[in-house]
């Protein structure tokens, strides 16, 4: 068969096999609608519960959405919310970055050295199921009340997730990729850089995401227990101040802000990265 005939035959086959791309805008709208409905229903239910004494004995126990909004606005005007968010984000971010460095190094070490993995692998996995708030009392005894406790608790909470995520990602690299790498001449460091690490990226990202969630939770626990006027106010301290003053509206506003920061980081930082990585590989949903 002539080369041009073959070219046309192949491009015909190529064209027939390709699938159409779905439109993204419509999918985004469709994804946003149900959560908004749920949020609206929740606010309505909250409002009714506060107005009708459902499930609480005293008025101060359940302020209405409006009262909570007003308390949050007051706190905002004094700058307390902004300061608390900034302090917590800086602590959480720095702690997470430290956990990322330690966890990645630990994960690589466990993946490369069989003995290390056999020796500490079970403990690292076990630590993942230990609530990191359990480290707070120990941290206070070792470091005193201060930011060191917070970084310590974040590390204990996030490092195992990150190390295990990287390890799982490396374990799941299809053996065929390693064979192809060897056929192409990738050995040693080149094989790690061009084959193992990129192939392990989805698992590693999942580990980082979980590591961030653990960092944030650990930090809140540490801030609730170990806050004082000597260190900057964090969101955990903001919550606990609300409890001390029996100001439920402040407590609720604190919970909402903590939740919003967690969701915000997930949506603004991790989701786009993860979506891009998975989409490139033709994995995950395209919404």
């Amino acid at each position, binding site marked *: *068969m002539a*080369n041009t005939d*073959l*070219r046309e*035959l*192949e*491009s015909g*086959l*190529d064209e027939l*096999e*390709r699938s159409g791309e779905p439109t993204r805008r419509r999918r985004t709208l469709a994804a946003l609608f149900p959560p908004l409905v749920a949020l609206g229903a929740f606010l309505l239910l909250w409002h009714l519960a506060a107005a009708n004494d459902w499930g609480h004995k005293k008025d101060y126990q359940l302020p209405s959405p409006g009262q909570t909004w007003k308390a949050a606005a007051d706190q905002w005007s004094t700058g307390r919310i902004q300061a608390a968010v900034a302090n917590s984000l800086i602590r959480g971010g720095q702690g997470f970055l430290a956990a990322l460095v330690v966890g990645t190094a630990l994960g690589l070490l466990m993946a490369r050295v069989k003995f290390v993995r056999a020796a500490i692998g079970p403990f690292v996995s076990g630590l993942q199921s230990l609530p990191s708030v359990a480290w707070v009392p120990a941290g206070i005894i070792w470091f005193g009340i201060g930011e060191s406790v917070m970084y310590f608790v974040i590390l204990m909470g996030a490092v195992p997730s990150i190390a295990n995520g990287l390890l799982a990602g490396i374990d799941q690299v*299809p053996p*065929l*990729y390693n*064979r*192809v790498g*060897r*056929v*192409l*001449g*990738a050995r040693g460091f*080149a094989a790690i850089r*061009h*084959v193992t690490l*990129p*192939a392990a*990226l989805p698992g590693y990202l999942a580990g980082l995401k979980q590591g961030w969630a653990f960092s944030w939770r650990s930090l809140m626990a540490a801030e609730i227990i170990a806050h004082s006027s000597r260190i900057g106010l964090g969101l955990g301290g903001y919550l606990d101040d609300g409890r001390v003053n029996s100001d439920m509206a402040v407590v609720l506003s604190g919970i909402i802000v903590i939740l919003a920061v967690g969701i915000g980081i997930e949506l603004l930082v991790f989701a786009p990265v993860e979506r891009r*990585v998975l989409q*490139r*590989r*033709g*994995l995950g949903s395209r919404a």
Partner: protein
Amino acid sequence: MTVEAVNSGPDLQVTRDAVVSLRGVTKAFGRGPVILDRIDLEIAQGEFVCLLGASGCGKSTLLSIVAGLDEPTTGLVEVSGKRPGLMFQEPALFPWLTARQNVELALRLRGVKKAERRLEAERLLELVHLRDSGDKRVHELSGGMRQRVAMARAFAQDSRVLLMDEPFAALDAITRDALHDELVRLRTELALTVVFVTHNVREAVRLGDRVLLMSSRPGRVAREYPISIPQPRRIEAPEVAAIALQITDHLREEIRRHGQH
């Protein structure tokens, strides 16, 4: 049409310069059964050899040994020139790269300078008629396109020897037929020496200058068939069918021996 089956022996086929040469290659994994038993094989420059056999005949192991991914337990393997290209049943393209980046990675690992990689990758993609698809991600390509990118990636190793392990087995018949034409064209154009493993008898006769029938457990070269039908051949051609029929009979004979205990 019939073809003379020749019993293979160590003193066979030393007419042209051998590019791939195996002498007394035996392979066993650990203390397990012998997978390959004293294989002697000489493959000449530009020759297209098909290895045919039932499951367990060690044809993939043989290919891995020629590719340098496996060591023979005993025996000698010589492959002249650069490390041979190897293609699998799955294209095994890296999904985090585009089609062109997959080819560029092979060039990079071969030591080609950055400035030359892109043009060279485009030239190689043009060889398999995929120049316009270079920026596509692997998942956006059809099965046939992926195997053609894998072919371009194998060419990027700049070896004149191409080893193929059932590369078209997972494709539909129409695409497979087109890729047979493509492979025959490229093999002439690039003066390739090809070792092609398959369990599809017609495919072997369609493509090969020589078909080696392997017996199973242990894997040996049982018979070999020179195929002199001029290219381009069609897989539906009666000459191809006639030889395929004869080889299939021999293959069944080999398989039946395993049923007799």
